[in-house]
């Protein structure tokens, strides 16, 4: 597979950013209802990893799933519509923000619950001989869930080709990692004999090759792997519930914005053209979703 060029990567990052900004901006207008967890600041993880997946590869995502879904190729209108509770949403309005499934992509809002499902899906594809891999995104807070360790054990025992991607934004809702995590993250995987790679970057060009190597390795030698991505959450956990000092978030934004980092590689005109195009695409998707009908109550 040929690597996406810088323009395509910027487009992918910016698409997620604008979708999520629109969600936060429009929540106040009442068009959305329920909950949301935006991916702002973490876009390079999803784009860097999911640029390598092929048709038929399986993705399991969590509560913070919009960025994963969009990087997977999911439809913006359908995701907006789901957040609005519309019949035409990804899940017909049943799932809401955290529960979406399209093609081989599945998300669930129960932290850690996807980790055995991902091992099972990977095992299924291996038994069927399809060659498909499974990617499972979890956060640092989810390292506290016991079922994860059952899953790692079984994935390792049975050689399930699943890539666990830990997105460590150093916070779980409001709890900083220092209060929730003892010991080392890579050692958790290594204890099960699962090779783990670790990156502390928001640069998509640093994540892309490492994820690519891991995935190529898994295709040649099926079995579980882990990729630990130290990242930054710029937005609130959900909406307006950021308990961190504003200066801290400002500093992260200044130093670790995946869009700023990658934009520097494009000519200004090129970048503006991409942004204009994406802005129009997001605006159109939002308007289309907004115009759709609500579902019949008993559907």
């Amino acid at each position, binding site marked *: 597979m040929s690597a996406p060029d810088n323009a395509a990567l910027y487009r992918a990052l910016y698409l997620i950013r604008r979708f999520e900004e629109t969600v936060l901006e429009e929540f106040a207008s009442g068009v959305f209802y329920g909950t949301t967890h935006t991916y702002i600041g973490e876009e390079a993880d999803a784009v860097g990893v999911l640029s390598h997946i092929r048709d038929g590869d*399986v993705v399991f995502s969590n509560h913070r799933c919009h960025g994963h879904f969009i990087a997977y190729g999911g439809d913006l209108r359908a995701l907006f519509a789901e957040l609005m509770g519309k019949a035409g*949403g*990804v*899940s*017909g*309005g*049943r*799932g809401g923000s955290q*529960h*979406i*499934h399209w093609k081989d992509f*599945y998300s*669930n809002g*129960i932290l850690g*619950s*996807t*980790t*055995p*499902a*991902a*091992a*099972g*899906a*990977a*095992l*299924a*594809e291996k*038994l*069927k001989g399809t060659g498909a891999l*499974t990617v499972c995104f979890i956060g640092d807070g989810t390292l506290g869930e*016991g*079922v994860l360790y*059952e*899953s790692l*054990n*079984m994935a390792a*025992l*049975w050689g399930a080709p699943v890539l666990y991607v830990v997105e460590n934004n150093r916070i779980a809702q409001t709890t900083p990692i220092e209060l929730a995590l003892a010991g080392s993250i890579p050692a958790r995987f290594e204890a099960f004999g699962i090779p783990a790679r670790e990156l502390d970057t928001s640069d998509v060009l640093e994540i892309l090759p490492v994820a690519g190597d891991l995935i190529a390795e898994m295709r040649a030698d099926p079995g579980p792997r882990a990729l630990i991505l130290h990242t930054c959450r710029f937005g609130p956990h959900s909406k307006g519930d950021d308990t961190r000092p504003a200066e801290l978030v400002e500093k992260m934004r200044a130093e670790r914005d995946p869009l700023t980092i990658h934009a520097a590689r494009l000519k200004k005109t090129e970048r503006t053209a991409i942004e204009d195009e994406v802005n129009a695409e997001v605006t159109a998707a939002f308007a289309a979703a907004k115009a759709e009908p609500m579902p019949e109550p008993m559907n």
Partner: protein
Amino acid sequence: MPTVLDSLNDGLHRAFAEDERVLLLGEDILDPYGGAFKVPRGLATRYPDRVFTSPVSEAGLAGVAGGLALRGLKPVVEIMFGDFLMLAADQILNSLTKFGWMYGGPLDVPLVIRTPMGGRRGYGPTHSQTIEKHFLGVPGLAVLAPAALGDPGALLADAILRDPGPVLFVENKLLYLEPVRGAAHLPEFELEAHTLPGDYAPAYSLRIAGAPPPTLTLASYGYAAELARRAALQLAYEHEVFAEVLVPTRISFPGNAFFDDLLIPALRQTGRLLAVEEGTRPLGWAAEVLARAAEALGPQLRAAGRVAAADTPIPASTPMERAALPQIEDIVAAAVKMMRL
């Protein structure tokens, strides 16, 4: 006569032979041990690539099965003791039964979790319980329970091969060594198997052969249904009370025609309902059966009652365990009392 254990073992073998997508996962299921209660005996020898003996990880196992099922395979998970189901409860409640619905559905999740349940073997408070009531109200979960009637193995094979899933398949431990009885083995009864509309899980009715029309309906499932059947004999021969026994093999509620097609019409005739189960009394299967009967029949329901386990943990010591769990004499006594109403 084959036992329920033989029949279930045969059902698993039939399902494995019929569809190569069927897999088995569980603890200690390899031969020669063949599982703590021997239900999967022989499968690992015959199908070594399709039987996964697992670490002691009930939640993980249920979750792995979910992933296998989502991707088109048909896993069967053995949970060694029903008491351990609670470790898998989150997966059942928030993943396995949600996948098929919450994404806009329908999406098949063809998997069966089977588990031995129940007491009377002195295993004590954490290895003797009947806890399926906690799963009966979970939308999207089919809960099946074979009795020592008909073809338990066929029920299991159908659940594995035909159900879009997920299914919880509850096997009472004392049933395992019971012979599977058909009409030929039950000369004192008229046994009828009922196929319910749209359901592969049958229900059974037993009436005392040659007796006048029944004046009492006993509803029960699993091994408790076997006790109810024996109680019905005593009631007929010692008390001249003629009861019919109705036994569903689907014990979850939504889409279960047992109530509308079998139980309610029967109650219109007898007006008396005694529901019998091995689980603790409050908020169980029997409670829901009674509520449904009361809603459907109103004053036509002259008397309704339950025989169930005491609302305490289950003691290990034999006399204490006996006292905590429903016995044939408890059913007889409750029935006789009810006949005075």
